């Protein structure tokens, strides 16, 4: 059995395989498929709880992933933020001397969650400028309805 603690390098290798097979479109097609089939828990939580659904979803995943993060929810303003000080996934990839991470590994976080949240009426912004040091931020904002 490949342990869940060994998944991230397997995930990165999968992206490299897909890129070899069909370039960036093949990688993105997989990310879209994964978002549609695997992120139903995020989708269901946001449908049920609104912006608080983001808080509920990432409260579980980021704690289970032992991330170093700060998360903020402002329900009245319809805003949710994650400041990822040290991403455990990217950090793990960078720490493995015998594994070369997929060159665009962090972008899956932009594609997967945007695809869930935008159709539900939220603006999604992913700041990847610190990705080479395993840090990033996510900002989700409820769109105003006219």
């Amino acid at each position, binding site marked *: *059995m*490949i*342990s*869940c*603690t*060994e*998944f*991230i*390098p*397997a*995930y990165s*290798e*999968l992206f490299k*395989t*897909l890129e070899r*097979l069909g370039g960036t479109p093949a990688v993105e097609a*997989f990310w879209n*498929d*994964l978002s549609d*089939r*695997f992120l139903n828990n995020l989708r269901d939580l946001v449908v049920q709880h609104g912006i608080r659904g983001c*808080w509920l979803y990432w*409260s579980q*995943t*980021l*704690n*289970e*992933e*032992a*991330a*170093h*993060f*700060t*998360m*903020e*929810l*402002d*329900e*009245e303003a319809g805003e949710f933020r994650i400041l990822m000080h*040290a991403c*455990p996934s990217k950090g793990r990839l960078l720490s*493995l001397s*015998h*594994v070369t991470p997929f060159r665009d590994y962090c972008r899956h976080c932009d594609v997967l969650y945007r695809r869930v949240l935008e159709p539900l009426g939220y603006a999604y912004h992913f700041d990847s400028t610190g990705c080479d040091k395993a840090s990033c931020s996510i900002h989700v904002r409820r769109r105003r309805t006219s």
Partner: protein
Amino acid sequence: MTREIMHRNASDNHYLHKDFHGGLSCGIEYLDIHFGTSVLHNYLRTFCRTFFAPLHAAVVTHGLSAIRKHYERVFEEEAGIIDVDASDDHLTITVRACPAILHMQKRGLPIAKRFCDSTRIMNECLCEGTPFTSELCDCNPRTGTCVQRFRRLS
């Protein structure tokens, strides 16, 4: 309360996100359906040969005890249930409760038809170029049970 803040250091939690088994399962199914089984198997071999290279080196040096130690640690960490029967020449791991299968069932995550190929190929890669061989028997993705056999080639 409408405003909340949560701050966590990495050391506040233990790294164990079992939903990742579902992520691997989705990837396995996607490659199998869209690119074919041989592409899936090549991907798994490439990953296992690269990522498990340090464990493979330990098998070359220490024999089957390296594989035994690895799986005992993994199954303990993920709260799986295994029986182990081992000597210098053989290792049989009887999996009575596979944490990956049971977690995906519990969460209602799709289990890829060829999910267990990841175990078979991982074990084959660990034995490549060593005096050992492996086989995966009685694999039942419904019950989360299987038998992983390793033995010294005669």
